[in-house]
């Protein structure tokens, strides 16, 4: 029946690792959830490019040139979360739920190899998806908004968005390993995302751009930055790593000012505009690199938890 050489020839680490990546990637690209997210992402990107043209033809006004569209469009908390969810929500948990972990772990692959293979596959899938999306929006923006500035920074925005997405990917990996249940994993991740999505703006309104917001995943604190004669608004959180790294590359000596609106003035029906008080000022370099550091810490901690738990798991399925 068999003609191949006897078993026992030790394959290289990379050969086995790549087999797991292949196993995982075939799954990812065939997931209906993932295909759905890709379609939504392209639909939204197309809408962002086409809508101005439609409005312009309806109102008869010309589209204003926006040379920074390509390096500022596309950073969305919800988008990062959806991509992470579609790729990683059941990457580990469903192996346990469906029992496919049993034949997988009885192959000559270590649990560390399985973990790294799954992680790398998620990285590659999201990277390719973002690369296609960014190429699409960059080319589209040139047609719609005219020549674009600083296109060399587009890969930096992509990298930043990838890191932002990987906070959620790593959280989903950790929850998947801990609970071995996809529904609980998704509920925890969605709950946390919504809590942060709702809580951060509320905290910002009442407490102002508190420094503590800089250490949570999400949009972070809002500030402003004076560049020449123009004041730019800036969000400091982990969702804006890409854009802030580009800002830092363009304006390395800029400072970000964080101010609090005087709410009491609004409540007492004063007719004048509410005053703002400066809470603190930080160099842009700190804002950009701190968000990067915070994101890396979250990713490393979540992935470490996921890896340790997977290694220690008893396979009872």
């Amino acid at each position, binding site marked *: 029946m068999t003609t191949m050489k006897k078993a026992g020839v030790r394959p290289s680490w990379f050969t086995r690792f790549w087999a797991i990546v292949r196993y995982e990637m075939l799954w990812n690209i065939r997931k209906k959830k993932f295909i759905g997210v890709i379609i939504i992402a392209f639909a939204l990107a197309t809408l962002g490019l086409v809508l101005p043209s439609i409005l312009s033809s309806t109102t008869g006004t010309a589209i204003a040139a926006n040379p920074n569209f390509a390096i500022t469009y596309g950073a969305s908390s919800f988008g990062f979360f959806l991509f992470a969810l579609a790729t990683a929500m059941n990457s580990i948990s469903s192996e346990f739920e469906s029992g496919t972990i*049993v034949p997988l772990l009885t192959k000559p692959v270590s*649990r560390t190899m399985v973990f790294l293979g799954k992680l790398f596959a998620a990285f590659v899938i999201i990277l390719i998806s973002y690369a296609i999306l960014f190429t699409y929006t960059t080319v589209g923006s040139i047609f719609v908004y005219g020549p674009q500035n600083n296109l060399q920074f587009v890969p930096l925005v992509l990298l930043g968005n990838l890191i932002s997405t990987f906070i959620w990917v790593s959280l989903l990996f950790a929850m998947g390993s801990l609970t071995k249940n996809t529904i609980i994993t998704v509920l925890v991740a969605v709950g946390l995302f919504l809590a942060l999505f709702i809580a951060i703006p509320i905290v910002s309104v009442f407490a102002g751009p508190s420094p503590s917001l800089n250490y949570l995943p999400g949009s972070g604190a809002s500030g402003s930055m004076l560049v020449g004669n123009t004041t730019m608004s800036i969000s400091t959180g982990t969702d804006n790593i890409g854009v802030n790294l580009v800002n830092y590359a363009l304006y390395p000596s800029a400072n970000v000012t964080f101010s609090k609106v005087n709410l009491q003035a609004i409540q007492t029906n004063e007719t004048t505009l509410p005053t703002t008080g400066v809470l603190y000022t930080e160099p842009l370099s700190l804002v950009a690199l701190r968000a990067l550091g915070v994101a890396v810490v979250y990713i490393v901690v979540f992935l470490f938890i996921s890896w340790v738990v997977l290694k220690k798991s008893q396979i009872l399925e």
Partner: protein
Amino acid sequence: MDYAIETTDLTKCFGSLTAVNKLNLKVQKNTIHGFLGPNGAGKTTTIKILVGLLKPNSGSVRVLGQEVHVDKADSRLRIGYMPELPKFPKHLKGAELLDIYGRMYGMTQQQRAEQIPKLIDSVGLKGRENDLIGKYSKGMQQRIGIAQALLNNPELVILDEPSIGLDPVGMVEVRELVKTISKEGITVFLSSHLLFEVEQICDHVTIIDKGSLLASDTLQNISSKLGPAMMHVELADLSTAVIASVKRLPFVSGTWKTGNTLLIQVTTYDDVRAQVSKEVTGAGGVIVGMSQKTSNLEDAFIQLVSKDRGEKPQ
């Protein structure tokens, strides 16, 4: 002796439950070794330890001369394993699954191209190898499970209930396949509830219950320990008077009660049904059915498990 599987005082507990209790299992190379036990006896737990899915609390495991560890991937290079009711990723096609697993074993493209079609053919999946596993029936999943266990041309194949979910033709095919691979020098360690299946293909048998070893020997030795024959007498109501009466017969060496059926171990090859019938009827018993046959694995299994559970011979 060089064993394919050797465990020493293997123990595995889940909380207060001892699933495997100081098990000393020895499986000789180039044999088809049946692994038997009632439900919950610890068979699957033992097998999961052998393939590195579970870590034992104490004791040691050597498979093909190598210590087994949960995260020691190389120890699984020479083993093929099919879990009980195996589940494979539904998004992969049958041939794709074997191709990916083949890559994990380090098989070259040429080796995979030669081996996979042969295996698909031998397990009866030809023509369905390019269907998604999600569309496979339970029996087809079982067949792809057997194929993946043989993919790396292993020296030891561990099959956990390989016939579950298969139709009668499939069960016969599996038995033939096991015999064929055994002839190629592969050691087969097979767990099964189907005693007739084990009796047909295995040359060695280990019986466990409550995680402990009850017997381990050649099939012939285990069956012959019972004596030449066993009688199965089914009664409308099995009373102690009937049992006592039967035990007085000179050729009866032991009796076991399972429900309303009395198993009688006899020391003669002669047909003693008439004498037993007379004795049972005389003691007020109403016989519903009766048979006398040469002792087999089923009899040995029932006797050993009954003894282990404190059901002493009547």
